């Protein structure tokens, strides 16, 4: 039996690789909270990644349940945070940005759809006080009611 010619296999795999590289995006952080995005229809895409900072809100994942309980928590970057830390975080992140970009910063709130609005309102107040006024409520496209 003649051997199967596999010389084009790398090319095929490379094509696959490039396809995945172009359609996916790098994970920003590893999630310590779990959340399911709410649904909406009037969505806008966040175009410039470098301008976006994320605030995650949800219940701790199972590995952190023991330590942090099942209450809704806030995650900034890679760690759990208190809502009072949001202001400092925003100010730090903003000063690390390029000067012409600082006014364009967008804060994306990625919260679980079951979250109570009390937590979200607190976050919004903190963002207001830190002058991070452009926000985006992360959501997925709703197909039907």
């Amino acid at each position, binding site marked *: 039996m003649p051997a199967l010619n596999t010389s084009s296999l*790398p090319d095929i795999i490379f094509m696959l*690789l490039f396809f*995945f590289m172009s359609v*996916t*995006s790098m994970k920003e952080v590893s999630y310590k909270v779990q959340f399911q995005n709410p649904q*909406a229809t009037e969505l806008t895409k966040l175009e410039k990644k470098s301008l976006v900072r994320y605030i995650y809100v949800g219940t701790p994942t199972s590995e952190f349940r023991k330590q942090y309980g099942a209450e809704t928590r806030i995650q900034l970057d890679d760690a759990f945070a208190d809502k009072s830390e949001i202001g400092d975080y925003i100010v730090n992140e903003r000063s690390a940005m390029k000067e012409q970009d600082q006014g364009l910063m967008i804060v994306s709130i990625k919260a679980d759809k079951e979250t109570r*609005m009390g937590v979200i309102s607190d976050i919004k107040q903190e963002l207001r006080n830190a002058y991070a006024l452009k926000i985006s409520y*992360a959501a997925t496209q709703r197909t039907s009611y």
Partner: protein
Amino acid sequence: MAKKIPQINASSMADISFLLLIFFLVTTSMDVNQGLARRLPAPVPPDQKVDDTEINKRNLLVVKINSLNQLMVQGQEMDVKQLKEEAKKFIANTDDLANYPKLYEEDFGAPFGVIRYTKEHVISVQNDVDTQYQAYLNVQNELVAAYNELRDECARKYFHVGFNELDEEWQKKIQKIYPQKISEAEPKNYGGN
């Protein structure tokens, strides 16, 4: 006579690219970052009193969401599916009704001409501490949808194309005719349990 160059063994190329492929599959995520874009009001200076009585009553559409995710619009219960139509009626006030916002006439230049629009309307969203995030976002979404539809209708009327296909200059004009004014009240506790 040219010396024969030995072929490079490329059989491991496939393995290397497989490794790369799997690495990218693991570290990336498929979901695109999209969301409902909103703008927060600037913070109130601590020495300034919060004053929310200055808006004329007819210019104000109050949308309240209680802890059971029920909706109250202008003192009446409403389903979230009806909110968009109500908001559109409120923002446009095409029939110049007395309980809807006051209309102002302004010349926007060609091709709009003189247009009557509600310059001072405000939609106020108030929610309870226990309101579910999804319910709140539904309301925000419907209100943004109302504005988007009105702008789109305006674009189709004067330019026969959708709002998104217009030049930025015209988009700004239309945004001026339908200015997005969704105010979020300072958080209060409304109860409702």
